[in-house]
C-alpha cells in the first residue's frame, strides 16, 4: 500500500470551528467499521516485544502484545514507568533502547530491521513527548526536507521551498498557527503548547498510516487541546490508525478510542473500551491492572 502522502488537491480543509464542541468522530466510526471488515492483515502486529535500556541494561518491556488494524484508534494508559513511552520509542527505533525479544510487523514488514527513517517513510509517525530544539534549522526548511524525503520515496520529484509554501500554509491553518511559525527554528524557544502543535503540523505535512501520539495532551490548555485534537481528527482519514499514550480522559473524549489498553510493568495488562477509562478514574490503575 502506498503511504498516504497528502497532496494539495486531496482534500479541502475547512478552518477549525472556533470553539464549538467537536462532533467529527461520527463519520470516522462508520467508515471505521467498514474498513475493519475489509482489512485482511493487521496494520501493526506486536508479539511478545521485549526491550531494555541500552545504557543501564534495565529491562523495560516484558512481552507486549498488540494488534492495530487499519482505522482503529488505540489509547494506551498506565501509570508512570509502566513502559508506555518506551513502547512508542521502540516502535520508531529510538537508539536508547534495544529489542531483546519478540517481533513487530508493520504493513507486512519486519519493523525492527528498519532504520528510524525507513520506519517513518513506510508510514509510521510518532509525536515526541519532548521534541528537541534544532538551532539553526528553520521549521519550514525542516518540513520541506522531510516532505521531500517522502516524495523521493514515492518516486515524486522534490519540490523547492516556494513550491511547498502553499501546501505548508494549508497545514499551518490546520493546527491554528501563524505563518511566522515556519520561520522560527525547529522547536527553539517554543512553549510546551507550540511544541505539541509543531508535532501535529509535521504529522499533517507528512501523513501517516499509523500515528503514535506520545502524551500529546500533556501541558496543553483546554483550547490548545481542542485545536490539537481537532487537527488530528482532520488529518486522519478512516484508513489511518492512531495510537495515543495519555494519562487523561480529556483527549480520549475528543478522539474516541476504539480500544483502551492499560500497561503495567512492561506489558499490556488489560484491554477494553472507553468504559474502562471510567473504572480507571474511579479506582486507579492498580485495580484495573490487577483485575485481568
Amino acid at each position, binding site marked *: 500500500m502506498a503511504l498516504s502522502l497528502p497532496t494539495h488537491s486531496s482534500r479541502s480543509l475547512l478552518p477549525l470551528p472556533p470553539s464549538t464542541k467537536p462532533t467529527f468522530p461520527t463519520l470516522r466510526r462508520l467508515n471505521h467499521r467498514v474498513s475493519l471488515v475489509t482489512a485482511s492483515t493487521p496494520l501493526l502486529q506486536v508479539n511478545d516485544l521485549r526491550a531494555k535500556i541500552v545504557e543501564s541494561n534495565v529491562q523495560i518491556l516484558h512481552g507486549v502484545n498488540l494488534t492495530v488494524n487499519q482505522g482503529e484508534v488505540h489509547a494506551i494508559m498506565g501509570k508512570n514507568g509502566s513502559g508506555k513511552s518506551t513502547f512508542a520509542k521502540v516502535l520508531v*527505533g529510538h537508539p536508547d533502547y534495544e529489542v531483546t525479544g519478540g517481533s513487530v510487523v508493520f504493513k507486512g514488514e519486519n519493523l525492527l530491521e528498519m532504520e528510524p527513517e525507513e520506519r*517513518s517513510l513506510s508510514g509510521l509517525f510518532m509525536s515526541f513527548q519532548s*521534541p*528537541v530544539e534544532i538551532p*539553526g534549522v528553520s521549521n519550514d526548511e525542516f518540513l520541506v526536507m522531510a516532505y521531500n*524525503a517522502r516524495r523521493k520515496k514515492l518516486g515524486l520529484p522534490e519540490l523547492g521551498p516556494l513550491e511547498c509554501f502553499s501546501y505548508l500554509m494549508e497545514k499551518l491553518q490546520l493546527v491554528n498557527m501563524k505563518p511566522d511559525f515556519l520561520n522560527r527554528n525547529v522547536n527553539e524557544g517554543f512553549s510546551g503548547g507550540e511544541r505539541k502543535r509543531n508535532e501535529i503540523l509535521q504529522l499533517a505535512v507528512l501523513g501517516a498510516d499509523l500515528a503514535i501520539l506520545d502524551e500529546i495532551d500533556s501541558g496543553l490548555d483546554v483550547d490548545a487541546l481542542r485545536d490539537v485534537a481537532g487537527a488530528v481528527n482532520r488529518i486522519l482519514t478512516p484508513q489511518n490508525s492512531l495510537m495515543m499514550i495519555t494519562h487523561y480522559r480529556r483527549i480520549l473524549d475528543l478522539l474516541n478510542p476504539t480500544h483502551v489498553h492499560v500497561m503495567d510493568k512492561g506489558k499490556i495488562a488489560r484491554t477494553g473500551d472507553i468504559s474502562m477509562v471510567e473504572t480507571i478514574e474511579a479506582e486507579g490503575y492498580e485495580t484495573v491492572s490487577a483485575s485481568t
Partner: protein
Amino acid sequence: MNGVGFSPAAMSSLIPFSSSSSSSSWISQKKLVRPKALTRAFTSDPYVLELAETLEESIPSTPSTPLPLHNLRNVASQSLLSTAWPSRRDEPFRFTDLTFIRQSRILPLSHPSAVKILTSHLPPAVYVGPLSALSSSPLLHKVSQFLPHTFPDADLFWSINGIAAPDLTLVYVPENCHLQDPIHFHYTPPQPPTPHPSDTMYLSNPRVLVVLEKGARAHITEDFSSAPGNDNDRYWSNAAFEAVIGEGAKLSHSYIQTQSLRAAHIKWTSVRQESSSAYELTEVSAGGKLGRHNLRIQQLGPDTVTELSSLHLSVGDQTQDLHSTLVLDHPRGYSRQLHKYAQQTDAGQLTRSLLLEPRATVNVKPNLQIVADDVKCSHGAAISDLEESQLLYFQARGIDQNTARRVLIFAFGGEVIDKFPSSSIRDRVRSHIKNLLDPSSN
C-alpha cells in the same frame, strides 16, 4: 591592488636532525650563538637549532633590512636557543600532534609575495604594504615601539616566524581615520616546485603588523586558501598577525583558513587593546591536516570590547586546535566568545561519528585572566545526548542520517559564518563547507 615585489624565493634545505651526526654543528654558527645565550643554549634542542640555522640562512640579511625587523629577528633567535620542539607532554601542545612536521624535510621559502594585498584606494595617510618599502622614518620609528613584542606564552612557532619572516606587511591607520573598505590579505601557499621529494615540506612565514591609532577603524580579512588544483599540497604555513588597537579604535578581523588537507597551518594572532578599543574576530578554520590557531588578547587599558567567534571544522584525520588566551587585567573588559567545533570522521566503514561540541559561550569578567579552549576536536569521543536526539528527530521524520548530520553541522556553523561582514566571504565559506561535508554535491 598593491603587489609586493621581492627577490625570488630563496630556498635552503633542512635535513631532519639525526641525533648523532649533527649535534655539534650548531656550535660553530656565530649567528646563533651569542654570548648571552650561550649558557641557555646547552639546554636547547638540537633539532630546533638546526632548523633555526636553516631559517637564518634562508633570509637575506642586508644593511637595508629595516631596524624593527632586524630587532625582531634578534629577539626571536635568542628565544629559539632555549626552546625545544614541543611534544605532547607540553601542556599547550597536549592536543596538537606535530610529528608529521617534525618528520618532514623543511624547506623555508623566503618568498615575501606570499602575502597579496587587495584593497581599493586608501586615504594618503594610511599605509598598507611591506615594511621594507616604507620611506617615512617617523612611521618606521612608531612601528619600532611595537616590535618586537614578547609575552609569556610565546612559543617556538612565534619565534620561528620572527626569525624567518622575510618582511613584514604593515597596516597603519592614523588617528580617527575610518577605512570604509576592507583590506584583504590573500596568503598564497608555498608552491613547491615539481617534482619534489614527497617528504619535503615547504615553509612560509608571513607576518603582518596592524597599528590602529586612536579612534581609527579598519576591517582586515586574512584569507589562507589552497591554490586551485593544489588541494593536496604539502606545505607549512607559519603565520603571525599582530595588532595594536589604539584608544577607542576598532578592528574587525576575518580569518578564513581553507588550506590543503595535507598542509600544516600554524598561526599566531596577538592583539593588544588600548582603553575603550574594540576587537572582533570571526574565524572559520576548515583546512589543513593540522590547523592550530594561537590567539592572544592583551588588554592595555579599561573598557575594551573583545568578541571572538570561531568555527573549526575537521573532516577525516584533520586536527583543528584553537589555543586562546585573554588577559583582561584592566577594569571593565568585556569579552564574548563563541567557539564551535564540528568534526566528521570516518570511524570504520559502518559507523560515522559526528562530534559537535555544544555551544561554548564564555562571558569573561574583568580582572580575570582566562586561558580557555585548549581544545582539540577529539574532546569526547561519543555523540552527546542532545546531538543524538537531534539526529533521531530528523530520522523520525524520514530524513536519513547523513543528510541530517550535514544539515546539523551546517546549522551549527551558520551562527559563526553569519558574522563575516562580507557577503562574498560568507557565500564562499558556506560553499566550501558544503563541499567538505558532501564532496558529491558539486
